[in-house]
């Protein structure tokens, strides 16, 4: 469980996060949604300690992140998997080496155990035949999937994904969403996902936090998002006619 209390973050004079309070539960897929530029990435990087924040606190299962020593932070981070918005693959390593990297760094497994595990996770993200490609030879969507494989290969306790399915076709996007939800439940991971993919919101949004102008404008789940009257949310989520229709049908069905 991750608890965020009154988080403030500025760059110079621009106040980006203006006091966000929320919590993310274990074994659930928690979504952060909001317009481009609303501060989702900044929020996630604050959670990870990649950005220093001026106010508020973040605690991981009772441990206040900012009060940990550098070494304790690093120990905590060994339990974190992160998928960056730009994938952030190591470009001097092949795809298989990228995925194997956390295993080489943090486990004492033998070469063949590691290889088996790498094959297993690469299969789960539908990448069977790309082991020896370099990241620069992979498509954007492939890179994203490699990044996801690398994030989950060492069974993290906390999983953060910055737009894990942007750049993927709808079918692969669903496969990835389902994969994340499955492993989250199976291994009781605390998962936080940034997204503006409405399909993900509806499918896997067990908890949804809506950010707008650096504030939490709404909080709920994929069940309650259909019923909310909050105009800011409906404006954003049901901006397309298709989703307006979907919502109407859902509400008619579930009267």
């Amino acid at each position, binding site marked *: 469980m991750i608890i965020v209390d009154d988080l403030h973050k500025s760059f110079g004079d621009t106040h980006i996060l203006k006091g966000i309070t929320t919590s993310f539960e274990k074994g659930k897929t928690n979504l952060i949604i909001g317009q481009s530029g609303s501060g989702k990435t900044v929020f996630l990087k604050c959670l990870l300690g990649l950005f220093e924040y001026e106010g508020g606190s973040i605690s991981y299962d009772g441990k206040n992140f900012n009060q940990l020593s550098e070494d304790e932070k*690093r120990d905590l981070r060994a339990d*974190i998997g992160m998928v960056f918005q*730009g994938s*952030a693959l190591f470009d001097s390593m092949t795809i298989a080496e990228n995925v194997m990297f956390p295993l080489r760094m943090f486990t004492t497994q033998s070469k063949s155990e590691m290889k088996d595990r790498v094959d297993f996770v690469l299969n789960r993200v539908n990448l069977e035949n790309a082991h020896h490609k370099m990241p620069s030879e992979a498509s954007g969507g492939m890179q994203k999937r490699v990044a996801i494989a690398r994030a989950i290969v060492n069974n993290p306790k906390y999983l953060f994904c910055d737009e894990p399915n942007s750049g993927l076709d709808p079918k692969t996007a669903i496969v990835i969403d389902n994969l994340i939800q499955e492993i989250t439940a199976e291994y009781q991971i605390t998962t936080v996902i940034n997204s503006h993919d409405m399909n993900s919101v509806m499918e896997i949004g067990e908890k949804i936090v809506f950010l707008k102008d650096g504030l939490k404008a709404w909080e709920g789940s994929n069940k309650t998002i259909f019923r909310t009257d909050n105009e800011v949310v409906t404006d954003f989520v049901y901006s397309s006619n298709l989703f307006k229709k979907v919502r109407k049908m859902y509400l008619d069905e579930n009267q």
Partner: protein
Amino acid sequence: MTYLHNIGLYFLMIKEMFRKPTKWSVMKHLIFKDIDDLIIGSLGIIAFISFFVGGVITIQTALNISNPLIPKYLVGFATRQSVILEFAPTFTSVIMAGKVGSFITSSIGTMRVTEQIDALEVMGINSLNYLVFPKTIALMLYPFAIAIGMFLGILGGMAACYFGGYTSIDDYIIGLQTDFIPFHIIYSFLKTFVFAFVLATIPSFHGYYMKGGALEVGKASTTSFVWTAVVIILLNYILTDMLLGS
């Protein structure tokens, strides 16, 4: 003010580089890779430059000795002194600040820009140890490259004598052996070790702490070259004054 800040940050970086070391089985590979990139990959250019500059020093000295009272073997002596004391350790290092330095800055800078350093940090890896430490260790072999440069510089002078007839090979060799002071070699290699450390850490500093995008990586490489060269030249002055001055 920012200069002071950066100098402080540089020393903090060096301290941090030794903390929370990366697993040896992984580090070993990183060191070998850096030895290959930074040392082996530079041998060709060091050999080429040393050989020809050694030759030119010999030619220039020979042409400038017109007084018949000055013995011919002085050509060998002058070449040896210039190559061993300054050319091989100092000027080669300035050239390496361009070659090795900009390679280090741009490769670490690119990792910063594409969030690969953040990815390392998020995994709980000490990215400074992972990136900078192996380069520093690899460059501890740099004095070997410089030794080769010294040898080839002197050989280049000999070749110039042989092909250009500036002085006889025998005179040249007598010159090489004249007034040989072993401490000069120690002085020279001490300098080289210091320069090797500078060559590894200053470009790493500029790459690691850069901000911005691809354009800034290019700018950082240039700045890094300038600062590495300036620091090498200044340290050269200070070390020479300390070790050889009376």
